[in-house]
């Protein structure tokens, strides 16, 4: 089966300048930058779920937003079905917006508290002028609410967000993203603020949509266990760079990068007899303004050596579709 490339990202960078204090800005001409996304490249195929895994501050949320052009990238190229997004005018980009949508992390913030659920879900239809009559809009809202298991729709349509639970709100957010039949959705930690027991429902609903409509999904998360469940391929990010990319089972069962190993070891397992020795990484994620020299992970890595401090490892393809950026990949 030929896999058509939907999204192609090349050398994406996004740097945020920091506001200095008044006097400091007078003294220095250099503006310190937060290198949130520092030269990443990847592709997503049609109908594929690509997981972007990492801790807070690694740049995954920024990547998602940049893909949707909610933020302007500092450098790099983004292609959607072969169209260079950065060269489009505002109006042309608007036409493409129908095909790309986003789901946010916070179910409390992503719904306008003053709008009814019906208005929230039907808003993209009206904004993108996809329906001609009110009946059509109503029909599509009903359809998508049933797909999200918010039945009976009448019971939820006229409520306001504060009357729904977190899980229900997140389903509304998914419904809103999906009603325009996009081809690509960025899901930015969609379930991390929900109860662990509800997560599976929302994730399963999203999986259903992916399988039924050949939706491509960029699933951003810090939970390796959940990423394993839903993603086809995973890219692990650390401080704005990829450290490992590959198919999910490969990455989760046979990690090559010490950071990936640490991430997997840190995830608790729902089995009291399954406790294993922890590979705990010391320290915290360093300040992204002044990343460590050489390999960015070296201060926390338990395998680090002299060269790790001096030279930054490149992302190399060690097998087909399997990339790692480490001088001493595990198991090799």
């Amino acid at each position, binding site marked *: 089966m030929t896999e058509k490339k939907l999204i192609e990202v090349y050398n994406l960078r996004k740097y945020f300048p920091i506001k200095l204090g008044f006097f400091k800005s007078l003294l220095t001409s250099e503006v310190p930058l937060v290198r949130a996304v520092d030269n990443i490249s990847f592709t997503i195929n049609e109908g594929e779920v690509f997981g972007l895994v990492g801790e807070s501050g690694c740049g995954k949320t920024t990547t998602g*937003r940049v893909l*949707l052009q*909610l933020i302007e990238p500092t450098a790099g190229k983004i292609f959607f079905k072969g169209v260079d997004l950065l060269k489009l005018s505002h109006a042309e980009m*608007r*036409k493409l*917006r*129908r095909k*790309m*949508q*986003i789901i*946010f*992390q*916070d179910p*409390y*913030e*992503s*719904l*306008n*508290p*003053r*709008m*009814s659920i*019906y*208005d*929230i879900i039907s*808003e*993209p239809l*009206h*904004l*993108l*002028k*996809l*329906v*001609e*009559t*009110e009946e059509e*809009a*109503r029909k599509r809202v009903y359809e998508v609410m049933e797909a999200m298991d918010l039945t009976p729709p009448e019971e939820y*349509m*006229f*409520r*306001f967000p*504060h009357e729904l*639970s*977190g899980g229900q709100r997140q389903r509304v*957010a998914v419904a*809103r*993203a999906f009603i*325009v039949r996009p081809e690509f959705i960025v899901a930015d930690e969609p379930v991390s603020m929900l109860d662990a027991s509800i997560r599976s429902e929302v994730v399963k609903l999203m999986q259903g949509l992916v399988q039924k409509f050949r939706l491509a999904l960029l699933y951003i998360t810090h939970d390796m266990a959940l990423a394993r469940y839903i993603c086809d391929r995973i890219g692990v990010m650390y401080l704005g760079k990829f450290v490992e990319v590959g198919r999910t089972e490969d990455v989760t069962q046979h990690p090559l990068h010490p950071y990936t190993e640490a991430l997997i070891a840190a995830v608790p397992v729902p089995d009291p007899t399954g406790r294993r020795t922890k590979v705990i990484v010391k320290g915290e994620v360093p300040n992204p303004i002044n990343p460590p020299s050489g390999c960015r992970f070296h201060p926390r890595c338990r395998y680090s050596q002299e060269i790790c401090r001096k030279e930054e490892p490149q992302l190399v393809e060690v097998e087909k579709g399997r990339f790692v950026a480490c001088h001493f990949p595990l198991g090799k």
Partner: protein
Amino acid sequence: MVKRRGVSRPKGSLIMSLLIVVLGIFAFTIGILGYFLGGHLNEEWAAQIWIAFTTKGIIPFSWPSALIDMIVGLIYIVCGILIFKMKHMELASLMTLGIGLISVFTYGIGEWSAYVKETVYSGLGVAYLRVIIQGVIPMITGAAAISFEREEAKTVLGRRIRGFWLDFSHNRIGLVGAAIILVYIASAVLVPVLSLGTDPEATDLADERVPPEWMTIFDPSLNDLPRSTVYNLNFSLDMTSIPDFIKNSTGFNVTYGESSTILEMEGISFPDNEPICMVFKSDTFNYPYRPPRGGGFNIQFEVSVDPCLYYNLTRPGTNITRTMRSKRARYNFEVNFSNPLNTYSIWDAEWSTNKITYFSEGYNASGLLEPIDLAPAKDRLITLMVCSKQSYSAALSTDLYWAYRMGHVDAHGSVDAQALADDLFASKGNYSMTMYIFVAPYQNKPVYFKLQVKTAQVTVRGLLWGLMGTDHLGRDVWSRVVHGIKISLAIGLAAAVVSVVMGIMVGVVSGYLGGIVDEALMRLVDILLCLPALPILMVLVYMYGRNIWYIVILIAVFGWQGLSRVIRSQVLSLRESAFVECAIASGASRVYVMFRHLIPNVLPIVLANFVLSVPGAIMTEASLSFIGFGDPTTPTWGREFNIMWTEGGAFAHFCWWWIFPPGIAITVLCLAFVFLGHAVDEIVNPRLRRRR
């Protein structure tokens, strides 16, 4: 690529929107016309159109009304266009409905009150035409336009209202506040009924600064304080005073009319040249009170005489006829006033001459002039007058000459008015007036004499009045307070609405657009904050006179800055919200985000702020009017405070019935708004915080 159109318009909304736009244009044109004409009144043609139309109630009277018409017209036009383009239909139709309602309220009350006073408008029907055109029709159209909204929107609106009511009905303080405001609004609408038809500007309803009548409940001894009464006394001829030769004569006639008694003598020959004295006795009235205050009474009578014979004279040889007049009687008269104890002369036969004598002699060096004590008229020698038709009337209360005759003028020429009143109304009982008419022939010819004695009026100004007494001009305080309600409400609401609208516009635009727009608007806000409002008002008043609209404009212009800052900071945090980003991800424009996402989320705070700023506006107006910058022609409570300060109601005399009612009224109204605002605030804030 097919250009997508969006949801199509429901049938009928086209007519609605056209109607609203047309009405808006109409209102706008009238406003411009009124404004233009008002500025060119020196020109003849303008003045004529002006008078013709304003009396029919079509063109607004003053430039502020014209301005309001223009603004209302513009709002209607904008709303009509929005409904036509199917954007923000809910908002547009609600605004049309609201403004229509307010117009009905404002114009309706104005027209009704004016109609009740029968002052301005010549035809009720035409006056109401404007109410209908600018108020009722848009209101109905706006309501109908709402019904075109989607089913879902109506259900959601219903739920919103129910949700709000559910929260609100549990807040007792809020309910109290709302109830009080409703009572005030009802009072404002029912003003003509409430004030019992009394004109708030009618003076001398009772004496100045008198307490209310219900004081007798607390102090029964006040029961015999005089109440405002007008006694109408008809005079009837005492036939015993008429000699037989007149009584039996055919030329003698007495007619009793509605308001006068007419006596006629036509060609009656008198046996000798001696005058006869005819006595006219008035009705008796019972005066059950204590004497009124000095100057608090009035005795008025009017007598017309015509001692002439009229005949037609034709010039010989022509057809020219002239009516000639020939004097045929000599007359004089005197009027007496009797109370149970004494009878006083209130008009003597030498009145005019004596008056002149008194005034020319002035005050003599030795002190008081002796009062004149006239013997009864019958016993005195009366000089009879000869003249043509003449009419005499007198309204006596503190006439200097009369006071001098009664002995109540001191060496410096000041009248002891109280002594005068005490003498005249010395005791409770029956009072009456007597008129003595002296008639004698002129040159021995038959007497032709016509006499008309109009109904005399004895007016006593009460020392107790009504529900809330009187002010320094004898005006009813209760009706003044009641008339002030609608003005205060209107001012408070108008100023609050303007400041809220400005605050939202500036706050949202500057918060969302940021950058140089934000900087510019915030600097504008800073400048306005630094401008001193009171000196500006003083300059305006000095240059253009006092006008209630200056105060309203001042409060509106200087009242919105704080709110705009608060809204701006709220918008700054809202624009980072996920739902705004989602809207942008679906292709929303900046204007859409502002109207659909930012403003609705800002509204709860705005609502609480709005309700809480109304009492501020009312108080500001009251304070400014109090220190004298208010409009002397508009009956606001602040003006009451000003008057009672300058006219001695508050400090010279403690007129609690004048001081407390407006004070209590304004305090309770402001308190009610604060309660309501407090309740709204409580409802609004928990919802923002309401998370699982």
